[in-house]
């Protein structure tokens, strides 16, 4: 490998590595390359990459090399991260959402009956995320609140209306 190829390879390896990439790891992967040649290429690559004064830099960390954003940009990045949809739903929340989507309007005791476990915190999560909404009270003992999916649910899952939810029959077509 010539020097330019070696520098390209180092850039890519540091980029994909989960942990800070150590010199030893680099030498292990690039066994055919001369050790001094690698060290020289690495120094030159870091010097050039950081010298660009771009948004990213290579930092030496925990005995290895890592690519990261420049500290002065962190405020903008934090602002960006905040705009992303919040955390993934837990399986409990997804199960509860599935039961509500297919059985709506449905009460908490009914959801419990189907899921076999308490679903109160999952329901709170779904309400906070505006994926479900209260749909009035059921006319039975205790008049429990009924829940159904919201407009946000339709948007989030790319549905025009609830009839677009795939049914079990749609799926039977697929496995049959």
């Amino acid at each position: 490998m010539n020097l330019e190829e070696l520098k390209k390879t180092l850039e890519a390896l540091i980029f994909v590595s989960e942990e800070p990439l150590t010199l030893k790891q680099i030498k292990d992967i690039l066994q055919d390359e001369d050790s001094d040649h690698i060290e020289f290429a690495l120094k030159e690559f870091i010097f050039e990459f950081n010298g660009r004064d771009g948004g990213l830099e290579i930092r030496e960390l925990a005995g290895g090399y890592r690519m990261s954003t420049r500290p002065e940009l962190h405020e903008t990045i934090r602002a960006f991260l905040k705009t992303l949809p919040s955390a993934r739903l837990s399986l409990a929340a997804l199960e509860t959402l599935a039961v509500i989507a297919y059985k709506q309007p449905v009460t908490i005791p009914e959801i419990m009956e189907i899921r076999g476990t308490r679903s109160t915190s999952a329901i709170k999560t779904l309400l906070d995320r505006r994926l479900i909404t209260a749909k009035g009270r059921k006319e039975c003992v205790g008049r429990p609140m009924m829940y159904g999916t919201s407009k946000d649910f339709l948007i989030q899952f790319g549905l025009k209306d609830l009839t677009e939810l795939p049914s079990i029959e749609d799926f039977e077509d697929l496995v049959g």
Partner: protein
Amino acid sequence: MSDKTISEMSEATATETAVEDNYETTNKGDYKIKLEAFEGPLDLLLYLIKKEEVNIYDIPIARITEQYLEYLTLMEELDIAVAGEFLVMAATLIHIKSRMLLPPDPNVAPESLEDPRQELVERLLEHQKYKQAASMLYSRSEVAQAVFTRAQIESDTQTPELSATVFDLLEIFKKVLERAKEQAEMEIARDEITMAEKMEEIHSLLKERDSLSIRELFEKARSKRELILTFLAVLELVKEAVIRLAQSETFGDITAFKRVAETRPDTEEISESGENLSQV
């Protein structure tokens, strides 16, 4: 589309690919693999057209039909289930063949005569286009797979989006329903008692008191199975002359008494058959 891409593709999915080569093999096992490889009747027809090196716009329909039917026979001989669509195509081919044999209608100008093969050719061409498109997608995915994105970074864990699709919701809903069903079955299984236990239970109840309402006994049953067991246990106890049953009025409650107890004169005695019990 380069030949290389297509041949790579056949390698990648060898067992599913309609083969280009070496069809002349006499090994039945090989034949079987290759015949199963045809995705459908259109695939088989395209293969035959290529093999016979005939013009797709002027298919010698008699020859191709004959070959097609030979392949179907071969598939049957090799115990390959011939899907319905293969038979539908066979019928279509035979129909086209017979239409080709008819003398042209003298009242229609030759240039406006419709070629009976027209529709089939169009379907074949259409199918062929999508096969080419599949090949294009294949090479695209090979290139796309050669690039790598960065490793996970700290911020990733905070940002993943709601990634479930509506199909995931349906899958999850089905699993919840299945689990609910299993749970119900497990509960029944856990409660399972034997007939001997049931008889013992009735027996000990009658030790504490002189009589027992049969309806009360049935109401205690928590599953259909227990209900039946209760019924059988009562009959068995009657048969063994441990208890006797009495009904104060027709359709009235049935009471079980220990055999030693006195029979009240005003009650109608029920025989061991238990026929009347079915009215309870």
